């Protein structure tokens, strides 16, 4: 129990509280508001206004301080973890946390890269926007091979919700009829370039069962009436999405879900408001509210509501739950099973190959496509692979590099300058994204001693790649090489970089769904087994990781859970 005062004594009671304004929180706020609930959305970071606060948008390199580079001392002191992410530079740094202000602990030989964005919109501003459905096989995997517990839902339970969120978000893609990557409600696909079309043809001819498709991504290639009404417009092919897009051409909370929630007049947003813990009412056996710390004044307050959605990110949500200790739940709210904090996963990546394509020297491209190609999973589908369980997909694409290849080429003077004036030969890259098995030893827990500047115990994170993951990473690089060589590439080189877990920024698990309250935190409605008015719909709910980028699944699970929650509320069951 925390002693608090109310944020505003006249209006601290809401129908629902949503914690976090990223992809999941934005969806929860939209759905609950549209169903008529008065919603308080709590965001720990600063307010961010769509368009106005996209400080780096549209700036040429020469218009940015130091041509876009962050001073070395700032990188080393403030962004010693965040700097591992490709998107951090002068045009985006306001969307990344200071590692110094937001510490967590790992063992020296077990690094975990926790990449975070604390602002209204969260990491929905920074995500890479790849949007793939899971399939039947993904929801059955745990049950079949015995790793983790069985998902309490199947593809048919989520399929209509994929339809629903895709239509609203706007997902560009091609229909392919693949069982391992179900088609969705797509806007027109983006174009492949000449080399990609050639590689696609070669891979599909030479490797039966493998397909190369254009990436499916949350971009408006052709906005619908629904998108236009929210003020969103068509993608301009600038490929600087992580700076923010005032066209609203890619899906983010700021471009899409929050405007939709706001127009209901049911939404109240509290920024600079850190959820410290969930308050539990043991008489009614319900969560009664959220204890909030003002990030600027360190003052405590409480918001109360009938239902609560935690969407504070995988590790953020679990940290709040672990910190919500009461007589009823001494080890964290809704943790009677003891699994809260366990079964952390990320996707394994940074293994693949690059090659050079000798042809098409008279072909080029125009515009910067904010998307690549995708090779859906092909291992362990019809035939069991003896080397590892489950599988991986590839992302990548072809391009003609520009002046940046100057880093690797020899020469000086007129020759160098004339060379760099023209595009280099076509290159092609394939990088795997693979499934990580749920393992109880991969976990987070609260530190006994160290607290952050707001008095919240910091997280310890321990997450290690194990045998299955390491074998898969090896095969990823071998397969990528084999496919590039079979496609006519030369100078093919492989890489397997041992990227620390977390860096794929697909962290999942730690408050998993399941059928049995003794071995899982959430039921099939993303509702806590122990606390019926508490719902968790961000990545922490995931029971397994599949190999597809997970955000679209968070959207669908959130919309589905909001629907169930409101139905239960209306029926008086919660």
């Amino acid at each position, binding site marked *: 129990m925390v002693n608090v005062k109310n944020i505003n004594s006249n209006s601290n009671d809401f129908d629902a509280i949503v914690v976090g304004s990223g992809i999941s929180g934005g969806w929860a706020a939209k759905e609950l508001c549209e169903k008529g609930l008065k919603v308080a959305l709590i965001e720990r970071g600063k307010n961010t206004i769509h368009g106005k606060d996209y400080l780096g948008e549209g700036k*040429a390199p020469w218009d940015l301080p130091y*041509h876009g*580079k962050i001073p*070395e001392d700032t990188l080393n002191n403030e962004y010693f973890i965040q700097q591992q992410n490709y998107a951090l530079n002068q045009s985006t740094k306001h969307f990344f946390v200071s590692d110094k202000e937001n510490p967590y602990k790992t063992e020296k030989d077990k690094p975990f890269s926790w990449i975070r964005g604390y602002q209204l919109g969260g990491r929905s501003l920074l995500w890479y926007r790849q949007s793939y459905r899971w399939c039947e096989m993904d929801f059955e995997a745990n049950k079949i091979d015995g790793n983790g517990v069985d998902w309490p839902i199947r593809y048919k339970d989520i399929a209509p919700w994929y339809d629903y969120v895709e239509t609203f978000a706007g997902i560009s893609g091609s229909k392919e009829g693949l069982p391992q990557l179900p088609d969705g409600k797509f806007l027109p696909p983006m174009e492949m370039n000449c080399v*990609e079309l050639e590689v696609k043809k070669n891979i599909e001819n030479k490797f039966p069962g493998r397909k190369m498709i254009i990436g499916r991504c949350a971009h408006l290639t052709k906005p619908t009436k629904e998108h236009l009404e929210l003020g969103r417009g068509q993608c301009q092919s600038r490929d600087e999405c992580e700076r923010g897009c005032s066209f609203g051409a890619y899906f983010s909370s700021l471009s899409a879900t929050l405007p939709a929630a706001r127009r209901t007049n049911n939404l109240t947003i509290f920024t600079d408001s850190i959820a410290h813990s969930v308050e539990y009412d043991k008489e009614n056996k319900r969560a009664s509210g959220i204890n909030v710390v003002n990030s600027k004044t360190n003052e405590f307050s409480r918001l109360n509501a009938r239902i609560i959605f935690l969407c504070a990110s995988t590790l953020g949500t679990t940290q709040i739950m672990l910190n919500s200790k009461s007589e009823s739940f001494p080890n964290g709210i809704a943790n009677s099973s003891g699994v809260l904090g366990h079964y952390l996963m990320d996707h394994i990546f940074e293994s693949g190959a690059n090659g050079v394509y000798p042809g098409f020297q008279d072909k080029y491209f125009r*515009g910067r496509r904010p998307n690549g190609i995708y090779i859906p999973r092909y291992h362990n589908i019809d035939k069991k692979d003896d080397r590892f369980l489950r599988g991986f997909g590839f992302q990548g694409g072809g391009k003609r590099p520009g002046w*940046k290849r100057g880093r690797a080429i020899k020469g000086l003077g*007129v020759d160098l300058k004339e060379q760099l004036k023209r595009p280099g030969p076509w290159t092609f890259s394939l990088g795997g994204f693979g499934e990580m098995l749920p393992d109880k030893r991969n976990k987070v827990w609260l530190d006994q001693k160290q607290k952050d500047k707001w008095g919240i115990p910091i997280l310890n994170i321990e997450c290690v790649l194990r045998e299955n993951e390491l074998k898969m990473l090896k095969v990823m690089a071998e397969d990528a090489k084999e496919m590039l060589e079979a496609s006519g590439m030369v100078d093919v080189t492989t890489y397997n970089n041992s990227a620390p877990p977390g860096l794929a920024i697909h962290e999942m698990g730690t408050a998993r769904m399941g059928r049995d309250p003794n071995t899982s935190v959430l039921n099939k409605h993303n509702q806590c087994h122990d606390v019926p008015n508490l719902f968790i719909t961000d990545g922490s709910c995931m029971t397994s990781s599949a190999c597809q980028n997970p955000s679209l699944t968070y959207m669908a699970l959130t919309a589905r859970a909001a629907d169930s929650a409101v139905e239960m509320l209306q029926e008086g069951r919660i």
Partner: protein
Amino acid sequence: MKISRREALKNTALILGVSLPLSHLKSAMSVFEIDEIDYKASFFARKNYILLTRIADLIIPRTDTAGAADIGVHRFIDTMLSEWASVKTQEKYRSGLNSIDKLAIDSHRKSFIDCSAEEQTKILTGLDDHPEKNAQSNFFSELKWFVISGYYTSEYGGSVELRYDPMPGQYRGCTTLNEDDRVWST
């Protein structure tokens, strides 16, 4: 070190050996001349500043378009070293430039800046082609990248030398590359 006026003018003549039809080059005066008059570096001592300017000019020289020194890449690097770089990086650039000068003194018994253009090019090419990595060749490849990235992320390099398209509108995957088409800069 004081640069000899005569050597500076000799180098100037070499730089200006190429005709300059471009109106965007504000002045036909040599970068050396300008810096002799207008030395305002924040980080580099005068000697290394002039050395840096000369090296930048050798990496991306003036052709029918402006070179790195023409558009002030040396000033950009000086600002970066002064404001952007860590103490460690600053020290690396100080000693790195000194070591290039020492190469010239060891092989030609004169400062890099007093060497002929051929001698200077030979020294840098030796570092650029160095078969085994050593401290000097590693430093040179970093410096070379600094000059290249400074040049092509500048407004001139990014939008005059190369093509800049801030708002493509749409992506076309298969266009024809004509003989005189320059590469996109971003």
